């Protein structure tokens, strides 16, 4: 009996949490079309298409920038997931010199205020001619996303263990093939999670993109943030809405593609 009620409590908690996440989203939808929303009204008192017009205005190049921004973030996400898989394998399965240091390094970008790192790397990148180039931005985004992706991949790699791959070896699969046919499908949920996480981080990265991209590499955040910072709720919300919708679209596409790799969606896809 008590068990049933604990389950019910969890359900209530879950629905509350989901509501709490969704409710504010409604606000940005309203604000994207609202002009005035004075006290004490629960709904806006006047609406306008100012936000929509601004977004579709050709001079703002919102959509070209959105496209290139998505491409950039997807690249980062893919690379980040790949590097994370490699690093996680190394850390989990092998003993090598410097493992402890590596373990720390892979976490370190999280432990450094972005101003310090960004200003430092900026100078380095200028010297290496990486500043103001998409490659430079991809590299810094990678550095920022890797702590997350490495951790995700590492937990999963650890929990899957080496048993299955060993089995594949003795059945004649080379390490690469055993990875491809055995570990990769088993890691797939984690890979999707990593790609998602890295994409989110890259797509919403502002300061470093600004400094390293130098305005030559435009991302969506860079056109959105000034309006939010200025406190323009209508434009800020309109941009935010585009931000959210485009990302959800991207996730749907990622999921559809990934689903092709896996047969049993219901079992292995927790995305």
């Amino acid at each position: 009996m008590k068990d049933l009620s604990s389950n019910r409590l969890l359900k209530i908690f879950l629905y509350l949490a989901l509501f709490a996440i969704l409710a504010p989203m409604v606000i940005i939808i309203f604000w994207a079309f609202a002009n005035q929303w004075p006290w004490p009204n629960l709904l806006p008192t006047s609406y306008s298409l100012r936000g929509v017009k601004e977004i579709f205005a050709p001079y703002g190049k919102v959509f070209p920038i959105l496209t290139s921004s998505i491409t950039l973030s997807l690249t980062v996400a893919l690379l980040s997931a790949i590097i994370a898989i490699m690093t996680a394998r190394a850390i989990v399965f092998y003993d090598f010199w410097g493992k402890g240091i590596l373990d720390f390094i892979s976490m370190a970008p999280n432990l450094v205020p972005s101003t310090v790192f960004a200003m430092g790397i900026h100078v380095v990148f200028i010297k290496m001619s990486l500043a103001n180039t998409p490659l430079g931005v991809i590299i810094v985004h990678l550095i920022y996303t890797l702590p997350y992706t490495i951790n995700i991949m590492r937990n999963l790699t650890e929990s899957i263990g080496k048993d299955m791959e060993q089995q594949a070896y003795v059945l004649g699969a080379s390490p690469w093939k055993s990875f491809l046919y055995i570990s990769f499908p088993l890691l797939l949920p984690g890979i999707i999670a990593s790609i998602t996480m890295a994409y989110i981080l890259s797509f919403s990265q502002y300061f470093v993109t600004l400094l390293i991209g130098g305005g030559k590499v435009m991302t969506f955040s860079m056109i959105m943030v000034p309006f939010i910072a200025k406190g323009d709720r209508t434009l800020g919300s309109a941009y935010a809405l585009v931000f959210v919708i485009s990302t959800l679209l991207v996730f749907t596409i990622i999921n559809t593609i990934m689903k092709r790799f896996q047969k049993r969606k219901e079992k292995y896809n927790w995305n």
Partner: protein
Amino acid sequence: MELEIRNISVSLSNKEILKSINLTVENGEFISLLGASGCGKSTLLKTIAGIIKQREGSILLGGKVLDRLPPHKRRTVIVFQDFRLFPHMTLAENISFPLKMMGVNKSECRKRAIELLKKVKLEGYEDRFVDEISGGQKQRVALARALAADPVVLLLDEPFSSLDVNLRKDMRELVLDLQKEYKITTILVTHDQEEALAMSDRIAFMYNGEILQYDKPENIFNNPVNTIVADYFSEGTYISGEIRDRRFISDFFNISANKDNGRYKCLIRPAALKVSKANDSDFEVVAKVYQGDNYLLKINKKDSNLKLESILNEPLDIEEGDKVTIELDKDKLIFIPE
């Protein structure tokens, strides 16, 4: 191909698990590896397959040193004790995995998988996933997959442990047939001595990371090198005594024995003991355990701590509490030098 294990030592977590193992398996030979739980059988198989690295020693296959060859090039295929089926693949995909690795085309793969599934009596299961089948079914799939890998050396780690006698018999025959047909050098780990005795050309007995005896089944059963080996095959009662002039002399009985002089322990296994009812005897049946085809009698001698066991093939009329006389079958007595 001939498999030679030379002086292999293995440590895990800083514990010495295998201690200088030497073992040669002839080309196409079928040997069994026996030994108590935890003695290192699985570790030895994994070392042969290259999954565990030895600290010392070498493994040779057909005269070639394997040590630096990665597992996937050794063609030493294990059926693991814990199956290790791939959860993201159907049974057919699991079984055709090694074929796919060899570059066999898809339809051929599937055909062969279905064939093998039939052989392990799992017809119609090809599209199930691993978590939809029972323990014994998993074990059979693991076996089928290993057979599909076309092994040069087949390492079976308790491959029949979850199967009932009938299935087990079929599977044994399947393995033996293929093994004979393709001359696969095979090592079977089992805890079922009957299985080992019936299937093997030779048996290696392991104890605590070492091989105590490596011999033909009958020899190992009838002439165990020490009480550890003897006990493993069937327990019985030990009587200490001495052999002099081809006779074993002990506190309890004297009997002819075809051995050199010296102190010996005589092992009386249940099968060596015949009983018949007799009212005026020192021996009493204290328990009669039903074993299907026969009964096991536990017999105590009055005023001593001598405990014996006997197999009763006919139900007869002997019951718990009856007094019995006993008779030893001297051909079934086992003498172990002390």
